[in-house]
């Protein structure tokens, strides 16, 4: 009986089958999978009406016939808040397929230990719109994540978003037409390298937010990425923190500590190449007593910056600060720091102790400014000497 059953499922997943049967057969296979199974999904364009889910399994591979060859489309989704949902699993590989147009997130994985996304395209096909779902690839509360050679398009929050997770590598990925191309949030030990983030509102973000289970992120390295032309108008639905990211942002570090940014090309951003800011800049009251709103121990070095002269786009809250407080005119600095210090980490000179400093050095076309946001931007300083330093780099992480 078992062989007949397997055979039937094999036939069942061929594209000659009706869409509804295909969906049911695939979901059934995901439910019945036993540890070690490889679930092959045929080439074809399949309309899926509800979330596909994998729960409580070990060592499962879900494999399509290739990006753009096996396409799961959720345009007419009726149930479930995401396209594919993987929860409480270990050793999962998702590879070689395209997922499109889910109502919520495209692929969400939660509480998974050892997860690989490889050659997955996750996209909203109707262009950047606030009606698109939040995240294309969305591992949260996971450990040991590899996202390799994936493409994320059109997310109304972040294309590739890793939240409240540990041990992360994101490489060789492409993200465009998202609000944020790639975002690391409240996560520790992340290595983000050799990716291409372009045409988003913001290229790569590293955020720590309050009121979450995993409190503190950090130990993040962002290097050898091409981050360019992220000047898309912000289309995030209001209420989301990413909605505050100004268009024309290459990278933004919000309240995260121990972050190194090096050997990247950060090109053609109309507002900022690399912004380093505390949570106070989000102008949201902090009620989480354990939360640390200050970015500290950050190095920005050996990157290449390019920017044509010109004023920042007048859109959103940050743009107002730029226009009316910072008054950089057309010569906008590539790297800005809000300058709000945590006094408990300062020495007698009022500056950060060596292990907490923000250091900027050896960048090509480097230009830096301290916004002095702490004193209502009264003493905005270009190329401030306290940021001209070298400190110990973030130690290589688990990968």
């Amino acid at each position, binding site marked *: 009986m078992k062989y*007949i*059953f397997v055979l*039937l*499922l094999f036939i*069942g997943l061929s594209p000659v*089958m*009706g869409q509804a*049967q295909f969906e*049911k*057969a695939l*979901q*059934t296979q*995901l*439910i*019945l999978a036993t540890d070690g199974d490889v679930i092959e999904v045929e080439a074809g364009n399949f309309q899926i009406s*509800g*979330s596909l*889910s*994998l*729960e*409580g399994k070990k060592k499962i591979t879900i494999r399509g016939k290739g990006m753009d060859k096996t396409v799961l489309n959720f345009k007419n*989704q*009726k*149930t*479930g*808040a995401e396209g594919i*949902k993987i*929860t*409480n699993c270990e050793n999962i590989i998702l590879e070689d397929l395209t997922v499109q147009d*889910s*109502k*919520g997130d495209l692929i969400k994985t939660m*509480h998974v230990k050892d997860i690989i996304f490889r050659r997955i395209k996750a996209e909203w096909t109707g262009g950047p719109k*606030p*009606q*698109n*779902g*939040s*995240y294309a690839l969305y591992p*949260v*509360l996971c450990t040991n994540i590899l996202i390799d050679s994936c493409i994320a398009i059109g997310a*109304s*929050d972040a294309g590739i*978003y890793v*939240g*409240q997770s540990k041990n992360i590598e994101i490489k060789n990925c492409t993200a465009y037409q998202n609000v944020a191309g790639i975002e690391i949030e409240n996560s520790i030990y992340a290595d983000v390298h050799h990716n291409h983030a372009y045409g988003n509102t913001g290229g790569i973000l590293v955020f720590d*937010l309050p*009121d*979450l*289970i995993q409190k503190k992120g950090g130990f993040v390295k962002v290097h050898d990425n091409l981050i360019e032309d992220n000047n898309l108008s912000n289309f*995030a*639905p*209001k*209420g*989301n*923190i990413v909605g505050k990211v100004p268009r024309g942002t290459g990278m933004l570090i919000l309240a995260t500590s121990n972050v190194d940014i090096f050997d990247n090309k950060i090109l053609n951003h109309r507002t900022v190449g690399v912004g380093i800011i505390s949570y106070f800049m989000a102008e*949201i*009251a902090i*009620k*989480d007593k354990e939360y640390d709103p200050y970015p500290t121990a950050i190095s920005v070095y050996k990157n290449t910056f390019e920017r044509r002269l010109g004023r920042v786009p007048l859109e959103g809250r940050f743009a107002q600060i730029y226009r009316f407080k910072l008054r950089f005119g057309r010569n906008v600095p590539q790297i800005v720091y809000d300058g709000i210090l945590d006094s408990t980490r300062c020495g007698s000179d009022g500056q950060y102790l060596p292990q907490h400093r923000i250091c900027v050095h050896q960048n090509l076309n480097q230009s830096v400014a301290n916004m002095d946001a702490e004193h209502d931007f009264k003493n905005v300083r270009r190329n401030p000497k306290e940021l001209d330093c070298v400190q110990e780099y973030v130690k290589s992480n688990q990968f």
Partner: protein
Amino acid sequence: MRYLGFILLLGLFSYQPGPKFPSKLSEYGLFEGELKNQLPHSGVTPYELISPLFSDYAHKLRFVQLPSGKSVAYNPDSVFQFPVGTRIAKTFYYPMDERKPNGSRRLMETRILSHEPTGWVALPYIWNEEQTEAYLEVAGGTSLVEFKNQQGKKQQVNYVVPNVNQCKGCHERDGKMTPIGPSARQMNASMQFAHGNENQLDYWSRTNQMRDVATSRPQFVSYIDESASLNERVKAYLDINCAHCHNPKGPAKSSGLFLDYRYYGTTAYGMMKSPVAAGRGSGGLQYDIVAGKPAESILHYRMNSHDPGVMMPELGRSIVHQEGVALIREWIKSLN
């Protein structure tokens, strides 16, 4: 093609998740007489919750079968820890006319929660058109049902039976499957048994099915009880409808929004709390709950939606619970 689907279904019925589970509901022997009458066998106890989960206006019949000679310990705080071997059955149905609850009805599904040595297992059984039997369907299913509502208006529901993974989407705590409803606070009320009306906990105690039952016991109000205080109704409503996911150990813990009644009034309960990963679920609003302003509160917005990418809860309903939304609206308005 037609046969393929049929054969595939046969394949499904042969599915055995771990230990052997019956492919037909009747095989459990939970009921006597005609299956559709849902009359519990001796040793099977019906139970009711004071404030039940909203499931597209479906009505529910609930039963527990403890393993013979076993009992469950009372506790005042959380869902009872039923012993291994316990089975819980929940049948979802629609009266053809809501104004005649004892008239004809359409049984949709019966969910069996079975406490195996390896943990709880959830299994959906879908009723056939003839209403003679319900069959195990691990992949769930959908069917259109039509009934007359309280106002006598025709209402259509595209009723969705969750697949076994989706069952766990709600019935999860710390990664493990668990029942949601049966707690002291939800069962501390009188219900009609075959022998007459009796407080459920008293009955369970008297019949030696529950031990150590306290005399002073917590009690939820019924959220439909308009004589109860608004705050208490909301606590009960959000607890049963949301807190199974929105608690520090549940599937929605990543949101930091905890709607367990114990968090009432805190930031974690949504008071002026910014969303984390709500995306378009925020509806362009800044906070989960803004005192006095339901139209600016994400909680109200998401409860009032039936868009799968926006609505909360995200499973188990396809239409808006108008009375629930009205309750939350009234409550938020009352806050200052």
